[in-house]
């Protein structure tokens, strides 16, 4: 069975949105800064709710923020 890794553009999007800090993003989506760090390092796959909150913070659809490796 093939394994898919979830990649994300959170770090880049933070820079593109007024150099938002990890703590600021964490506060906006209601998680700890450690969770944002883990997400950006691809060491943690977020719940759908958190993924949608993060995408909503950047006013983008979820699939523009998170993508599965090997998928177009």
């Amino acid at each position, binding site marked *: 069975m093939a394994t898919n890794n979830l990649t994300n553009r959170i*770090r880049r999007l933070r*820079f593109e949105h007024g*150099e938002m*800090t*990890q703590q600021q993003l964490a506060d906006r989506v*209601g*998680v*700890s*800064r*450690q*969770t944002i*760090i*883990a997400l950006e*390092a691809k*060491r*943690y796959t*977020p*719940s759908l709710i*958190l993924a949608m909150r993060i995408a909503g913070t950047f006013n983008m659809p979820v699939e523009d923020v998170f993508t599965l490796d090997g998928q177009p």
Partner: protein
Amino acid sequence: MRIGRHRKREFEKVALSRQEKHAWFNLAICGLAGMTFLALWPWLGPQRAAGALGVLGLWALGPIFYGASDQKRDEEPDELGRLIQVRAVLAGYAVFWLVFVGVCVGIWAAYGSRGRIAVNVLPLLALGGWALFVVVQSVALLVQYSAVCRHGDE
């Protein structure tokens, strides 16, 4: 240039979560109990020095300092924190059961099916199992936090 400035601002040590503080507290109490035990051993012998393990009772203060309360509701662990907590508890239980079964089988193998052991072994087994569970859980939690979210922006 701008990213470099941003990185400099954010490349700082990440503050410990309440769970990590609780884990360090548990390990510190365990270390204190162990050192007290070893310090008393030469004077009191191993059996009486084991009274020093009563220091482990200070673990009961952990939930007061780091437990959930109305004032600390905003510090409740998020989804990653809860996942790490669950894994740490599972690790604690797994190691506890392995050691518990090992000790039971070991006693049975050493003394035979008709052997006898002191009743004092039972509370020691319970205390030891509890201590082992707390220590393994604390270490597992700290290791996971360290592995998953080591640094800020790099």
